[in-house]
């Protein structure tokens, strides 16, 4: 498979506590990869490693390599801002800025200096269309991002992340704060987006993982227990622990 991102013997420590142990996997290009596992198994930590968000936490340590298009993003001369441009993130709780819808989406391009070469309104429209929000907000672009409903806010955050033209989109339990209808819309959105982006999601909702993802990884206590095509992992899990988790023997 074409690996957009890859981890090699990845280990991660919060101070003395080891959160991830020897995680090696390849994230395929233009596919949706989901990570499942019980609370505290390290899935959010893993996700945040992929765009170096854990750098903001003091006292953490990383072992191994994390490759984006074959290059280690934790290498010595790597520009972390560039990494975050290429690897975007959508958070669990929708967190639009207290600014207008337009300014929310335009934020990334503005701070990255992209607005020197392209028209901001074009970029904003493109991103909102990609996030399936354009038709609902095109007449109220000046309205505050906080005035939208929960599902709309999350799609706004997706549009905001897409505006920086990333190659990879990380989504940390993107639907857990939303109602079923909004969840459905976002899952449909993910399916459209994977044609242009590589998507990695973390979810505690097994059915969602089964519905949307192409590849799935099961993390337990910081270890990658199993990793493979979603259809195979869910119907014929190779590891007993995977089977136990999927069948609900523990949660």
């Amino acid at each position, binding site marked *: 498979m074409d690996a957009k991102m890859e981890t090699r013997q990845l280990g991660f420590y919060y101070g003395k506590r080891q959160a991830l142990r020897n995680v090696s996997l390849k994230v395929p290009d233009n596919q949706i990869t989901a990570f499942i596992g019980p609370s505290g198994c390290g899935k959010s930590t893993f996700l945040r490693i992929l765009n170096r968000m854990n750098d903001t936490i003091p006292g953490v340590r990383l072992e191994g390599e994390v490759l984006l298009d074959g290059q280690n993003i934790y290498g010595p001369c790597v520009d972390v*801002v560039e990494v975050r441009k290429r690897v975007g993130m959508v958070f669990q709780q929708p967190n639009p800025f207290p600014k207008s819808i337009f300014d929310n989406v335009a934020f990334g391009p503005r701070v*990255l*200096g992209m607005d020197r070469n392209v028209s901001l309104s074009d970029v904003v429209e493109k991103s909102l269309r990609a996030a399936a929000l354009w038709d609902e907000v095109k007449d109220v672009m000046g309205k505050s991002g906080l005035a939208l409903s929960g599902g709309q806010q999350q799609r706004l955050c997706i549009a905001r992340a897409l505006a920086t033209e990333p190659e990879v989109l990380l989504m940390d339990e993107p639907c857990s704060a939303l109602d079923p209808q909004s969840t459905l819309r976002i899952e449909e959105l993910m399916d459209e987006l994977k044609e242009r982006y590589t998507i990695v999601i973390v979810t505690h909702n097994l059915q969602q993982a089964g519905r949307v993802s192409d590849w799935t990884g099961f993390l337990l206590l910081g270890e990658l227990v199993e990793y493979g095509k979603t259809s195979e992992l869910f119907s014929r899990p190779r590891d007993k622990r995977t089977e136990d988790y999927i069948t609900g023997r523990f949660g």
Partner: protein
Amino acid sequence: MKSRYLIDRSSKVLVLVCASASFVILLAIAIFTLKEALPAFRQVGLLHFLFGTEWSPRNNEFGILPMIVGSIVVTAGALIIAVPLGIACAILLAEVAPVRVRQFLRPAVELLVGIPSVVYGLVGMVLVVPLIRHIGGSGYSVAAGVIVLTGMVLPTIISISEDSIRAVPKSYKEGALALGATHWQTIWRVLVPAARSGIIASIVLAVGRAIGEAMAMIMVLGNAPVIPTSILGPARTLAGSIAAEVNYAGGVHQSALFATAVVLFLMIMIINSVALIVLRRGGRVQSIC
């Protein structure tokens, strides 16, 4: 976009400089005040300065004991009245009064907190002093000073104490009521003790304001640099002493005023430290100011 990183790094330095300004100013105040005060200390001698009972610049006498006593007496007097009154009102506003009353009173209290001290001094001069004159003396007296100071610190104590009582978690109140305590028992035995650190902080703030008050005290105390012997007699505070004379003092006299400021500042530091100890022993440390 390399300029982005340049801006990022230089802005960190810029805000650090801004933050250090406070400490630099404090240091500058300490240095300048001490430097100007030194001649007086050298000429008069520390002990004679602190405990001398005669302040007469014309005769080269610089003893500030009368002012120290004056400051303490007036402040203590104000606290004796303002603390119980203030806490009672705080309880009233936080727990007892109906919503309508609170909606009217609370903004009034906040307004009072902001009224300039000279306005208090003016009312003191025009209302309180004549009233006290009826009882005895010239009216310009310790009693007038106490009343004016009480008026000044009362709003501060009320507003901060009320906030503290309101901030106590509802679970405490519900727990006490559920055990069968009356409303008053809940207030007195649970809420007020729980709000202790905020109430003490408000008192410390009030003391700071009272001891540091200069203009209003000049207006009602009579400014006689003598140890006050009766409530109806005149007095002078440290801060008032400085303000009253600094505009025309020179030489050693001026230096003595700076020395007075040093003493004033030290007194406030001591009070703040004592308060911090009291707060810490209560189990919760909070910023004094």
